[in-house]
Each structure stands twice: as C-alpha cells, then as structure tokens.
C-alpha cells in the first residue's frame, strides 16, 4: 500500500491509535507485525527475502562481534567470513532479483557486438519492492559491527524491526543501526510537539507528492514521449522532472519521517534543499543523503577516498558514482547518469584551489552573487543529468540536447504553466524554509498562528482538490 492511498491512511490510523496504548515490548511487536503486513500488501511472497536478510545478518552480527572481541588471527578470519557471508547474501539477493536479466542481456549484446550469436536466457523475475534499500541497511549493520563502531543487538525482534520498519522499508531513508536501533530499544514517551511535528511532515510530504510531483508527471511524460520537443520545451521538461523527482522522493521521505516521528522515532533527513547546492559535492550532501553517505562510508572511503593522491581519488569517485548510478536501476542509462555525476565531482575536485570554512564546505570566494551564480550553474548541470536519467534512449537524449542548442523556439509559452502552477507554491514554501532554516512551515517561529493556519489551509486546498490521481512513487522502481 502506498503512502498516498486510502488503505494506508486507515492502516496508519489503526496502528498509531493502538501504538501509544502499549508498553515498549508490545509497541515493537506491533510495529514489526504492522511492517510485515505493510510489506505483504505489496507482495507477500517477498517477505521471505526480508526474513532471510534479517536472520543472516542477525546471526552474522553476533558472530562478527564475538570474533572481533577475540584478538587472534583465526577469530579475525572468522569475522571476515561472517562479514563476507552477510554481504554476499544481501548482494546476492539484490544481484539476482534486480540485475540478473540486465547482466544476461548485456552479455548477449556484447557477444552480438563481436559477431557471436548467443541465445539470451532471461528469467521472469519480479523486482521485490524496497530490496535496494533494506539490503543496504542490513549490510551497514554487519559492517559497522566488524569495524567495531557498534555492538550487535541480542534481541532478534528489535533487529527484525530495524530491518523491516515500515515507514522506511520500501524507499528509505537508509538508516544506520547505530542511530535507529538505540531508539527502537529505548522507551518512548508521547510528546505533543513531536507528534504535531510528525503530522506536519506527513502533510508536507503528501503535498509535495500529490500536488506537485503527480501533477507535473503528465507534462514530463509528454515532453519525454517523443522526439519533437523544442529547446524551450526540453528545458521546461527538465525543470519539471527535476521538481517531480525531488518532490516524489523527498515527499516520500518526509511522510516516512513524519510517521516515525509520530511514533517517537527519528529518521534521518534525506533531502536538504538539494537544488540550492553550489557544487557537485554540495549536491550530494543534500540529495538522497542516506544513500550518498552510505556510499561514502562503505565504498568510497574503503576504496581509499581522497587519501591516496589525485588519480586514485578520481578513480574512487568515478567508481562510487558508477555503482551509485547502477543502484538506481538495471539499465545502462543509470550507470551513465552516475558516471556523469562522477565526472562532475572529478572536475570540481580537480578545479582551482579552494579554501574551506569550518563546516567543511567550499567557501564562497566572491559575494552572494557568486554563490547564486554557482547555484544556477549547478542546478542546470543537475537538470542535464536528469535528462539522461529520464530519457528513453540515447537517441532521444542527444536529440533533446541538440534542440536545446539549435531548435530553441517554443511552440507555445503555455508549456511553462504547469511549472508555475504546481511549482510555485513549492518554491514559496522552500524559500521560507531556507530563510528560517526549518523543515516545514510549522517551524516558522516568527509567523503568527493565524497566518500559518491560512497557509496550511491553502496548501491543504491545493493538495485535496487539485492533487492528481494517485501515481506510484518513482523510487519504488529502484
């Protein structure tokens, strides 16, 4: 069941109503049962995969921890074996269900390219919803134990809940065990403020999804349907897709965080106004933060990060981004998209000398105008990447790029109206949030309650009466 469905509204209302009446042990049991019911609503057959991942990583976590406590070499070897088992199980599940056909077809194409005739063997494999997310989440658990960053939990139910927690099960955020597990095991008390914050987040997330993303979807589909879009239409189409994917994904994350908050649990911030990034690295500190930090901590840094010279740094960046792209889907366009961002990161990293400020960000060498300029450029570089991400084929993308340069004249300025109508309210709220440095309107402290009430009323009106018909979340396909 999707967050923007009647069934989920009923499901969540029932769960939250019972939840706060129960003691901690029963709360966790309720959440676990609810999570399995939630996932079974998608496809009950794939519950077995979550359970396999849960069981393997629970045992592996304990064994790795026991091995790391002992100092001898054979224990270290045992620890590595268990870690390998955990990683192989998770990557094996992911590889089989997500990439099996992709690799088979790609291999066949490669043989064909060399003039060798090979019959493709493809299986009718259904992609289990959320597999890309929970496998990464459980791998981070065993890896962190191996690195002695945390101790394993001995409570199987708590661990099972960590893996299957329904708000973030199917589309993230990809949580770290060190952050979420202690919250699961700790007693939670009801807080009106936290509950209200959660409701605000849920509302804002649904607004972004139902009003902005789903209403922009037909316009984006229209632009990417054929090859005849003019340059201006391609540009607006790219802007619209940038807003669509941002609102779709961040909307889901907000609803997930809101649901968790209402239950006294804090999930990590997954999007931090990514389109005000002024550099590629800044973008990846703001976009899908849970994935980018996962890739940084478990891929980029183990590869050597930026500690082994410029050449190795570039290699590590490119490899991380290529695999990050592949994570998004079993298609070469995602790999190309990842490679594109890798290239941006490499170019940025290799560019002229910078100074860094206390926050570790690239400090502006000029004024705010300079930063605005960089934000403008970075946004358009990101949009260029979205063309690759969303495009149907290489031919279409190259045609679109050509249109941007040669066939600029628009057929009609009406193409920009969806952006104005659906993006406008989003822009206003995002600017308010940026200036107030808060997650939602609720945090705008200086605004009187009556003004917030009016603002919420208008947003609710747009969401309830101009929200598009329910569409699935884009990141469910990953």
């Amino acid at each position, binding site marked *: 069941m999707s967050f923007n469905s009647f069934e989920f509204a009923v499901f969540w209302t029932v769960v939250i109503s019972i939840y706060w009446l129960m003691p901690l042990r029963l709360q966790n049991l309720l959440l676990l049962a609810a999570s399995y019911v939630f996932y079974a609503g998608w496809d009950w057959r794939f519950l077995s995969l979550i359970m396999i991942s849960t069981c393997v990583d629970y045992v592996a976590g304990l064994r790795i921890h026991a091995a790391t406590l002992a100092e001898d070499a054979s224990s270290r070897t045992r620890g590595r074996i268990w870690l390998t088992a955990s990683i192989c199980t998770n990557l094996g599940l992911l590889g089989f269900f997500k990439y099996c056909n992709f690799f088979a077809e790609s291999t066949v194409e490669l043989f064909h390219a060399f003039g060798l005739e090979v019959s493709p063997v493809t299986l009718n494999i259904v992609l289990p919803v959320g597999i890309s997310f929970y496998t990464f989440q459980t791998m981070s658990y065993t890896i962190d134990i191996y690195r002695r960053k945390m101790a394993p939990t001995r409570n199987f139910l708590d661990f099972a809940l960590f893996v299957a927690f329904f708000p973030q099960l199917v589309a993230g955020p990809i949580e770290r065990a060190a952050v979420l597990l202690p919250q699961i095991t700790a007693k939670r008390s009801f807080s009106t403020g936290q509950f209200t914050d959660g409701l605000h987040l849920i509302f804002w997330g649904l607004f972004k999804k139902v009003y902005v993303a789903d209403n922009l979807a037909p316009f984006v589909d229209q632009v990417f349907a054929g090859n005849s879009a003019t340059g201006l239409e391609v540009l607006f189409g790219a802007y619209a897709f940038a807003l669509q994917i941002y609102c779709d994904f961040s909307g889901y994350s907000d609803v997930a965080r809101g649901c968790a908050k209402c239950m006294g649990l804090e999930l990590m911030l997954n999007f931090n106004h990514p389109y005000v990034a002024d550099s590629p690295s800044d973008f990846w500190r703001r976009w899908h933060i849970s994935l980018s930090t996962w890739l940084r901590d478990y891929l980029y840094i183990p590869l050597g990060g930026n500690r082994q010279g410029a050449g190795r740094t570039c290699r590590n960046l490119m490899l991380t981004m290529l695999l990050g792209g592949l994570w998004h889907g079993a298609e070469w366009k995602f790999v190309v998209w990842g490679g594109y961002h890798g290239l941006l990161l490499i170019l940025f990293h290799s560019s002229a000398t910078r100074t860094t400020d206390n926050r570790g960000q690239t400090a502006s060498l000029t004024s705010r105008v300079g930063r605005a300029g960089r934000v403008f450029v970075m946004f358009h570089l990101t949009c260029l990447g979205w063309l690759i991400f969303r495009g149907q084929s290489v031919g279409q993308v190259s045609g679109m790029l050509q249109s941007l340069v040669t066939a600029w004249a628009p057929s009609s300025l009406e193409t920009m109206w969806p952006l104005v109508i659906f993006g406008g309210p989003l822009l206003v709220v995002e600017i308010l949030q940026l200036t107030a440095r808060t997650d939602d309107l609720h945090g705008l402290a200086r605004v009187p309650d009556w003004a917030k009430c009016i603002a919420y*009323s208008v947003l*609710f*009106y747009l969401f309830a*009466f101009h929200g598009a018909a329910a569409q699935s979340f884009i990141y469910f396909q990953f």
Partner: protein
Amino acid sequence: MPTKLVKLLKAGLRFLGLAVLFVVTLEICTRIDDMLTWEAPFWGRYDNSLLYVSDRFGIHGRPNGQFEKWKLNQFGFRGPEISKAKPPGVYRIAVMGASEPFGQAESPGMEFPAQLQTILDRSRRGRYQVLNTAVPGMSLPRINEFLGDYVRQFEPDLLVVYPVAADHLDFRCPEPRKALPVPRPKKNRPSLRLLRRLRVVVKRILPTEIASSLRAYQTRRSLRQYGVQEQWRSPPPERLAAYREHLTSVVDQARSCGIDVLLATHAHRFGETLSAADHNWLIAWRKFYPLAGGDCLIQMETEANTIIRRTAKDRGTRLADVADTISPGNENFSDFVHFTDLGARIVAEAIAAKVLEIDGGSSRHASRAGCTHTLGQRMDDSCITAGS
C-alpha cells in the same frame, strides 16, 4: 475560576478559532477557484440548480444557465447561441433525451450532440444545426410535452430521440408534468461550496468495495422507506407497455408536427459477462432504481431497445442502433450509461450516418398543418403551415 480550567478554556477557544479560520479559508479558496475556473460569482449560490428552471414549460434548461463546464444558451440548450428562427437552407436537428445527450463526464464540447455538429460540419459546413435540447432526468412523457410546448417552436427538421428506459423502473412510472404535484421552490439558503467539493473528493478516494457497500445499503434503505419487500427480478409488463406507449406518443407528436424522427437505441456499459468492476457499477446504477433487483435493469434496457427497434419499423422512422454499435466497457463509458469522449464520438458517428442518409433523401420541409399537442396549449406560435 481555577487557572488550569482557564488555560484549558483559552486553548480550546484558540483551537476553535483556528479551526473556523481553516474552514473559512478553504471556503474562500473554493470560491476563488470557481471564479477562476468557471467564471462563477464569488457570492451567492453556485450549484447545478443554476442549470434548471421550472416554468410553464415544466422543468427545463435555464436560459443562459451556467454551472462549471455546462453552459446553456439563451434558450436553455447546451451549446452555442442560435436564432429562434431557423436560418434559410439549414437542416435543423433537435436532440432530445436526458443526461446522456446533455453530457456528464465528457470534456466540454465533446457530448455527442456537439460532436454530431462537428461531424456534420465536416460533411457539409453550414447545412446542419444541432440543438441539444436534452435535460438531465427528462423522461419520455416529459420529452413529449417539451417537444410540443417548446422545442417545436424552433422548427427542427429532424428529431433525434435518445430515450432513457431505466426510469420506467422507478417507484413511480414516469408521467407528464401535469400529472405530478408542483414541487416546492427551494429556499435560497447560504451553503458551503466546500461541501460539494469534499463529496467529490471522498467519492474519488473511497475504495470501490466500500462505496458499493454504502450504495447497497442506501438501496435497501430506500426499499424499506417505501415498504417494498421484494425487488423486481425482471421488468414488469405494465412498465414495458407504458414505455412503448410513451415512445409511440413522441413519434406520433413529432410526425404530426411535420418533424422527421430518428430513434436511437440506448447503450450501456455492460456486456455479455460482467466483470467485478461492472458489478460495482450495477450496484451504483441500482441506487437510482431500488426496485430493480438482479439483472432487471439490464433486461429493461434490452427490452426497451427491442421496443425502439419495433417502433421504428412499425412507424416507419429511421433507427440509429447505438446500442449495437458501441462496445461496452471503460473505454466508451464513464459510468453505467454516460459516455466518455470516445464513446460520445461513436454515438455521434452512428447518428451522423443516419442524418446524412435522411437529409440526402428529403429535399424539403414537411407540412406542419394539423399538428396536435398532447397536453397544455403553452405555445407562443400557432400552428405553422410551411409551403412545400
């Protein structure tokens, strides 16, 4: 008063105030939305009663009535402005019926009479003029009355009748206006437009199974209110006989006024076998005719179409067999009987083919001498005898 109670009261009042502000803002947004989308007035009543008027001609389209996508001309017909007098050389077609020709779910300008106009214009521009005189809920007896009292004044050359049959399964068999009690005028009380919007949204998001259960409950409640123990399993013969009589009266009246008649069979979404979705639509349809249990409604449609075909043969009128032409299902029907844009086009094409046949054969207007009226003498003009 204890401090805690005062605090509680203040908090309660504050919450109530914000709640009222929330609702008022929503209502203002609704009205502004109506203004921008439909050119609706900000103040005053805005609902579908703006489309109807009840006067000496009975209940019919309100002249210049407008509500959302439905816009009526100065004569209360849906469509563009026309002159009362028929322009020379024009073949005027009056489409009569209920909500199907009037248009429900179709995009503006895509109801089948409007599409009929477009198709005929492509064939011979300026020759044809289609008047959509349909009124939602108009039964055959009312069509008969309205034809004689009002539509006849516009001197149509051809009358296209798309008659509803299911209303003959209502608690009361359709009767002419004169036989019915005069309805009390509705009080013009202020109302929240927001409520209408909320109803639409709730209907949209409610799962089909829940909606069907609610409708089935409403049907049972209606039966209880009327003290009915058992639903009809098949259309009662007396209702079928009434339908035949009403249809024949319409044809006879039109003929006596010198108007050619084209009868159209009535289509619905249900095919030979019913899907789960079809069952839900049948439950929805039954809500309007609670007496019709089981397949009674579908049987009534089948029997009524047989009557239409037989009447056309017996009376020598043309027939557009729409029911046979249009395929059942979601593509052509937005609900049980109303069309999608595509469905309306198919209907329009079927009727247009017959119109072109008829117009190709006839070359002059018929004499209108000796026209009769079934009920009432609400005519502005006396009988007209046109020269041949």
